């Protein structure tokens, strides 16, 4: 709660402090806000509570689960703000302020106990994003991305709201625990009414849209490719995490009892998502678009956690999101770097990178290995625990997921091969060092990724 308030106030201060100023000058303020929020969140995790905080207990719940995920969200936002240095001509504080507002929305989505808060969080998170996607005003693709995201996003919101109404209609409550209890009674006695079924499925559709799972993923490749780099990174990490966690909370607490109803549907959609994501990524030449599809594929793996929705899969989810978030952040940051330098984002832009940028290349290497799920990285640990938690109930799905992970080697390694085994036409003189903050953030991402891969228990035991 304290972190949430801090970030919110920070965003408002930024709006006023930064009128017309160059974005770069505001960066330290953003970092400070996020860093303090991170610290507060940490203290809260270890038990620091103020007396007035009890009052929100019927709407929000800050327990170890939500605080651990909030910590991850703030960390990802902080590293993201370090990895993307604004260009000189970028003016105005609105971009940062909007990102912080969006982060606040994300934090509500990890800690809601009422449908009100879920919806509020979702919208607080999404509306700034529609603007952010179009924040590069002179870029046509950015404009297109914003419009597409907005149109389809509002469509999805409508579906979700429709679902919420149906759920309220069958249970008479917005409280997620209360709904869980009502469903227990209802399913025990009579089986589920069509209205309850439609409600659950509609809510599912709305949330699947937010995490870009098939067949509601169509927006993702286009929007990810068109949006400015930092917004894409933010969407792929913070927004995705918040979406998955919200879905996990809701489906574990409210709809958990009815999982033999929605389980098969979600399992098939998960398989579809992995299939579409991985196979489309195979065909891309643009690295950014490839990562967009890979992000869809990862959403498919993440749905496994929701299918199982128990303590272990929640832990695995935290680990997986940590690994994926850290890896995706550095990967998107380096795409940003390469596109700024060479004006293109395709895989061949990375030819011979390892010689020119050893540190950056190593960071990208670890990220890609982690996304592939090579042992020693957080990505492997995450996949391992996620898959093993779901193995008993959904053996076929896990085998399918493993096959598709093997396919993913093909596209992730294309970049590694380009970096380490190809020669670039350019000579070494065109090396343009990264800024200090970028380098530091890359090192942190890489180190955390490896550390979490070697000692995953430090993360798993946080919930």
């Amino acid at each position: 709660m304290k972190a949430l308030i801090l970030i919110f106030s920070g965003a408002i201060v930024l709006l006023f402090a930064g009128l017309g100023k160059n974005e770069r000058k505001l960066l330290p303020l953003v970092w400070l806000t996020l860093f303090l929020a991170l610290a507060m969140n940490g203290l809260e995790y270890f038990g620091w509570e103020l007396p007035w905080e009890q009052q929100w207990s019927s709407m929000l719940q800050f327990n170890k689960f939500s605080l651990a995920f909030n910590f991850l969200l703030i960390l990802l936002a902080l590293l993201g703000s370090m990895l993307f240095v604004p260009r000189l001509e970028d003016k105005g504080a609105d971009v940062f302020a909007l990102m912080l507002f969006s982060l606040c929305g994300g934090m509500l989505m990890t800690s809601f106990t009422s449908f009100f808060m879920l919806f509020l969080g979702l919208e607080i998170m999404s509306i700034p994003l529609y603007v952010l996607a179009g924040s590069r005003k002179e870029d046509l693709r950015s404009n297109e991305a914003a419009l597409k995201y907005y149109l389809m996003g509002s469509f999805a919101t409508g579906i979700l709201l429709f679902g919420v109404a149906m759920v309220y209609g069958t249970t008479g409550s917005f409280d997620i625990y209360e709904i869980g209890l009502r469903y227990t009674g209802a399913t025990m006695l009579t089986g589920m009414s069509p209205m309850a079924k439609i409600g659950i499925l509609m809510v599912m559709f709305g949330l699947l849209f937010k995490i870009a799972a098939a067949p509601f993923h169509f927006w993702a490749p286009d929007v990810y490719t068109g949006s400015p780099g930092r917004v894409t990174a933010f969407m792929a990490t913070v927004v995705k995490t918040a979406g998955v966690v919200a879905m996990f909370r809701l489906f574990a607490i409210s709809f958990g009892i009815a999982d033999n109803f929605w389980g098969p549907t979600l399992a098939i959609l998960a398989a579809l998502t992995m299939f579409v994501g991985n196979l489309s990524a195979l065909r891309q030449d643009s690295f950014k678009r490839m990562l967009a599809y890979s992000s869809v594929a990862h959403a498919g793996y993440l749905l496994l956690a929701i299918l199982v929705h128990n303590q272990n899969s929640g832990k695995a989810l935290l680990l997986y999101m940590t690994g994926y978030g850290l890896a995706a952040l550095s990967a998107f940051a380096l795409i940003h770097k390469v596109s700024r330098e060479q004006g293109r984002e395709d895989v061949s832009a990375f030819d011979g990178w390892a010689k020119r940028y050893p540190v950056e290349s190593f960071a990208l290497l670890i990220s890609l290995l982690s996304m592939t799920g090579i042992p020693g990285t957080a990505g492997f640990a995450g996949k391992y625990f996620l898959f093993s938690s779901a193995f008993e109930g959904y053996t076929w799905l896990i085998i399918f997921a493993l096959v598709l992970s093997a396919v993913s080697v093909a596209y992730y390694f294309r970049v590694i091969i380009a970096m380490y085994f190809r020669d670039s036409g350019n000579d070494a003189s065109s090396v343009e060092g990264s800024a200090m903050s970028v380098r530091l953030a890359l090192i942190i991402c890489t180190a955390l990724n490896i550390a979490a891969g070697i000692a995953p228990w430090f993360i798993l035991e946080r919930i």
Partner: protein
Amino acid sequence: MNQSALFLIILLAPLAGFVLNGLFGKKLHALAGWIGSGAVLMSFICSLFLFQRIAADSTPLLFKLFQWLNVGNFQIDLSFQADRLSSVMLLVVTGVGFLIHVYSIAYMHHDEGFYKFFAYLNLFIFSMLLLVLGSNFVVMFFGWEGVGLCSYLLIGFWFNNEAYGKAARKAFVMNRIGDLGLLIGLFLIYFQFGTFEYSQVFEKVETGAYRPEILTAICLSLFIGATGKSAQIPLFTWLPDAMAGPTPVSALIHAATMVTAGIYMVVRCNVLFNYSPITRDVILYTGLLTSVVAALIGLKQNDIKKVLAYSTVSQLGLMFVALGCGAYSAALFHVVTHAFFKALLFLGSGSVIHALHGEQDIRNMGGLKKQLPITYWTFLIGTLAITGFPLFSGFFSKDEILLSLYDRSHWLYPIGLGSAFITAFYMFRLLFVTFHGKFRGAEEQQAHMHESPALMSVPLIILAVLSILGGLINLPHYTGNIAQGLHHWLSPVLADQPEHHHGFSTEMMFAALAVAGMLLALFLTRKKYLSDAVVPEADAEMTGMGKLIGQKFLIDEAYDAGFVQTTEHLSDGLHTWSDKKIIDGLVQQSGKLTGLMGGLVSKVQSGNIEWYLLLMVLAMAAILGVNLFI
């Protein structure tokens, strides 16, 4: 300082050195060497503190960093243990390691990869510490693989030379074969005992909770691992080739520390080996054979480092003889003294090579005594120590081994004695040909010849002192109540130890026999190489038995014809038949199929928003329909 901090500093200091030098070494220039050495010194100092604690109380100190893996019943901890055995190894690794680091600062001074060299050396020390400090087989295995990797990197350090790269690969492959044995051993241990922790495994063996044939299989597999790392027959041929690496590497890794890992492992598992007499016999005969064969080959080598390399193989053979006789403390005693004098000899040879700008052939040396006095005197001390000159460290440790060999079998004793005699022969040959007589190299070399700088000579002097005094740690029985220090020190970790009961005169007689052999070798070589000034013949001029020995008994050639060629033919055949036709076909077809599907899937992504919305609505309708009506 508390115990965990000591453990952490010992382990992390070299790791930090590796990271620092690896990341920023290029910018640190000469500082890289000092950072590398400082890191090891820090480990050494903390090892001394740890040693002091263990001296006061013999119960092992345990340190659990964290639980590493926990899957069902399968648990592996990243935990460490310091007891009487590992503390001795700790001091040797960090102490000798530190001296060699300092030496390398001067030796590698001009090398381009200066910082890389120290990064690798630090990584090596770290891996070696993992190996000796681990409290279970898995941590040991990680260290074991780590030192193998570093050895590979350092043998091929000058990778621009193709032959060096090949030598590195050979070492790596040979070690891999051994490692496979070790790995099988580890799996069997887990299969039989259900745990990897030393203490639990040993406890179960002592209570008899095992099947004897499996225990023998375990011991044999572990020993195969040891033959790889410690260069014993049949896996010894990599060590002489490993001399391609920089000389400090030969001293540290291929003489003083890594190659003794096999001996450490057997001593650590002495409980297991005690219950498998067959394996102990295998060890004994393998060690004895290696010791004699390698010593014979050493007789005809003309490369200063190769002579020392074969001598190392031969000495390691002797240590295995001791292990085979169950005289674990004697083996460890020889590990320690050997670390002193062999490191000294290698560093001395490095000093010679340094002075002669890369010359390694002893036929082009001679008379170096005058120009390189410090190198000469320290090399002389090293030679006297290894040949077993009375009161030098080698004298005590070798006698200890020969004595236990005599206890084991009166018939094998002469063979061991013979090996020691040959050792004395080739070592004095090396000494005389290199340092005495007239200089046989180019004029130019003589003009530029110079004694090595202080950074190199001081470690030489310290090691020389240690080579003289090293015997004090385990004096023979006849010295009374100060005798057998190391033996008593190790008694808490050694299960049961044969005590030899010989009278004063018997022990004296054995010592006299060994000394007599040594002196005989001294006089023979002195006459041949000093008085008659014979220069060893080139490989091409050798005849008869000498030729066979000079060609290293054709063992390399036999391996090449037997294994390498056969494998190549087999793999060629498989490549053309199964790989190209079956596997490639399958892979290509499945690749095509995946690509095709990928194409279909991405066709859907047209960029048209109405199309997307339509698809989404259709999908929702389909899902709802299926769920509601079916």
